């Protein structure tokens, strides 16, 4: 079942913060975050694994609540380059099921 992301879209001024949420109805092994710019392939941001391990870019911050099957991606001091669509992907082990995406636009 597809994870639910919120909000669906957000507009920020450069320097503002945002939080993107991802919620699943299934017990998860991991949650992944990817960003996709228009006309480009998705790019990896972070993996959050059951048990607390995280792998990803140092400038990205995220959390994973295993009991609630929820994850949040924290974007602080946003830059113009943060614009794009953010997808969470949830996994029970072998494959990813992606959410519907959150469109983020950062304005000067």
């Amino acid at each position: 079942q597809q994870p639910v992301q919120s909000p669906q879209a957000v507009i920020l001024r450069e320097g503002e913060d945002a939080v993107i949420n991802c919620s699943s109805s299934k017990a998860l092994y991991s949650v992944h975050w990817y960003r996709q710019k228009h006309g480009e392939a998705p790019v990896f941001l972070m993996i959050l694994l059951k048990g607390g391990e995280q792998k990803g870019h140092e400038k990205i911050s995220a959390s994973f609540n295993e009991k609630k099957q929820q994850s949040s991606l924290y974007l602080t001091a946003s830059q113009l380059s943060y614009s794009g669509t953010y997808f969470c992907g949830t996994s029970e082990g072998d494959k990813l099921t992606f959410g519907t995406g959150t469109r983020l636009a950062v304005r000067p």
Partner: protein
Amino acid sequence: GAGVSQSPSNKVTEKGKDVELRCDPISGHTALYWYRQSLGQGLEFLIYFQGNSAPDKSGLPSDRFSAERTGGSVSTLTIQRTQQEDSAVYLCASSLGLAGANEQFFGPGTRLTVL
């Protein structure tokens, strides 16, 4: 080649024709995944390979879709008797191991248009 490559980048075909989409993963990546992305939509899982085996084909939309992987490397996604609803971008991704614990590296995609 440092990244995942896909060919062709664009494919326009007529309804009813067969098409083959190719994916060259990063060397050494044992896992390979196919996704479909319709305009403005998210990524829909189709199938994945671990080595040359496909443990999960549950995402293939119909029996018109099939895929294979040879030599633990190149993969081909075949769509027979294409329909207009097959129009989408088909993305391939590879990873060192199964997706649950590993970063996926995506190719640029093949944009399929069925007239």
